[in-house]
């Protein structure tokens, strides 16, 4: 019974924790403009994150070390440093976007400008990173994040033209009034949002925090292969609700307030309140995960003691890094930079940095010295290799598409 509860809890938190500010904004933007015609990018991204999260979780469970703890050892300090700069830079950008996202979500209910809310949010994030137990942080925020299921209910309640949405999903074509450039740009952005590098940083380091062993592999796989796809369905629900309400009115999504509007249309005040609670939980959870991921990657590269399972005075440099990046993120957001713009940039740069994150995972998961009998099988290798090509194509295309389409305009 205890085991079933643990599996169910893991799956639920994986669903609730899957959606972050990047998924919220990008899926709503894409739904409003392109309907479900880019659903394939979400599906490809979800399969990709499942493949690599399983690998990194397996590495953590078998070796007792986080994937990126092994990157420097396995690939040398130069590749490790390149990896550190690339992946950590993107994760830091995502961390800024998530803190901004929490402020934007609170701004929807308190009528105080989001810039004034930022220091408060940053303090709460730091406090959680400093004081809260890892399992409490992950489970509470993940479970409250499930409030975003309200988008699936709203979509159902809105009664969309399902045959049209399904047709858009299956035909792999852009809407007639759109051009190919923005369509491909948003496909890359959705892929980047689904495969954000911090997810595997956090997943593998979290596995070490929770002291996974080989006997936890089954639970880990159930979390990944059930929780993440159900989280992906939430992304599709956000896009579908946005397509149904905004599509006919030619509304483009530029703010978090707009993302929630379809829920208000379908379910009224209570639905809207639940959606906003979901926004706060999803972005706050992601802010904690990205903040920790930055701390994990720096500490793991330099070989410092890290993690929330050790006392802060034992992992002083790790906690100092967490405090420093929180101050940095606050400083950036206090310049009044638009958090939605930071979010849009972060998902595209995520796509550009994907190979730096995922190539080392494939290498380590293939190394019998670390993995023993749990080394990658044929299926994992085939999928991993195919995905490296997909990731490579997305990475090469991301920045030129950003410039060429002027951020999908």
């Amino acid at each position, binding site marked *: 019974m205890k085991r079933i509860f643990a599996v169910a809890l893991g799956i639920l938190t994986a669903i609730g924790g899957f959606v972050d500010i990047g998924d919220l904004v990008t899926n709503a933007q894409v739904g409003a403009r392109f309907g479900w015609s880019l659903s394939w990018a979400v599906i490809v991204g979800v399969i990709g994150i499942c493949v690599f999260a399983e690998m990194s979780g397996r590495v953590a469970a078998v070796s007792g070390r986080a994937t990126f703890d092994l990157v420097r050892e396995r690939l040398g300090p130069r590749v490790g440093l390149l990896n550190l700069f690339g992946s950590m830079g993107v994760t830091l950008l995502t961390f800024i976007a998530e803190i901004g996202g929490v402020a934007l979500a609170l701004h929807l*209910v308190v*009528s105080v400008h989001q810039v004034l809310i930022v220091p408060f949010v940053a303090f709460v994030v730091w406090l959680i990173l400093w004081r809260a137990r890892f399992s409490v942080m992950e489970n509470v925020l993940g479970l409250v994040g499930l409030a975003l299921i309200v988008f699936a209910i709203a979509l159902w309640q809105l009664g969309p033209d399902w045959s049209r949405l399904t047709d858009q999903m299956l035909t792999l074509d852009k809407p007639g009034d759109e051009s190919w450039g923005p369509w491909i740009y948003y496909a890359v952005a959705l892929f980047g949002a689904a495969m954000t590098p911090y997810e595997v940083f956090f997943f593998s380091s979290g596995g070490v925090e929770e002291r996974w062993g080989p006997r936890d592999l089954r639970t880990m796989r159930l979390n990944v292969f059930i929780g993440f796809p159900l989280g992906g369905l939430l992304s599709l629900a956000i896009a579908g609700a946005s397509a149904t309400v905004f599509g006919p009115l030619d509304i483009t999504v530029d703010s978090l*307030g707009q993302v929630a509007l379809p829920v*208000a249309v379908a379910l*009224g005040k209570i639905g809207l309140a639940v959606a906003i609670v979901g926004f706060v939980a999803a972005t706050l959870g992601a802010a904690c995960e990205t903040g920790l991921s930055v701390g994990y990657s720096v500490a793991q590269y330099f070989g410092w003691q890290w993690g929330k399972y050790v006392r802060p005075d034992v992992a002083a440099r790790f906690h100092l890094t967490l405090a420093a990046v929180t101050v940095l993120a606050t400083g950036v957001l206090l310049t009044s930079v638009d958090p939605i713009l930071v979010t849009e940039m972060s998902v595209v740069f995520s796509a550009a940095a994907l190979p730096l994150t995922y190539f080392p995972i494939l290498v380590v998961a293939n190394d019998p010295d670390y993995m023993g009998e749990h080394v990658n099988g044929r299926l994992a290798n085939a999928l991993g290799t195919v995905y490296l090509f997909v990731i490579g194509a997305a990475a090469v295309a991301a920045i030129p598409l950003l410039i060429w389409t002027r951020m999908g305009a």
Partner: protein
Amino acid sequence: MTNRSGLSRRSVLLILLGLPAVPAVAACSPSTPDSDSWRLHARRAVADVLSNVQTARLALEQSREDHVLDAYLQTVAIDAEEAAGKAAQTLESEQPPRAERERYDAVTGKLDDATGLLGEVRIAVVEGRSELFRGLVEDLQATAGQLDTLEKGLGHPPRPKVGR
């Protein structure tokens, strides 16, 4: 003393010293896009303002049905006004090509009207004057229709004037 191309050292020096000044002088006057580019920018600006007008209308309609929270409505109204204002301002600050001068006035005038209306919406929402919402929804609906027509019209070059 001249080099092989016939330019004196002094001329070459003047040209070299003068080169950096070219972009500086050019920067003093706004660049003028060609007609196609201007129309594209104008369509984008109109589409952005239209999107925000429709967002404000939808939010006000939901408020009339008691579907939204007051603070949420305020945020949506303020965001819509700010975003529309930015789009309108970006187009206004762009130098129109001579052939599009007349439409520039018409488009920027209409965008100003729409932004002004969104300002009225924001004032009514912040002051909690819900009795004005019905009229504002109608005004927003009418403005959305006009912006839609304007956007479609920007899909083609200006029609030549028929002379006598």
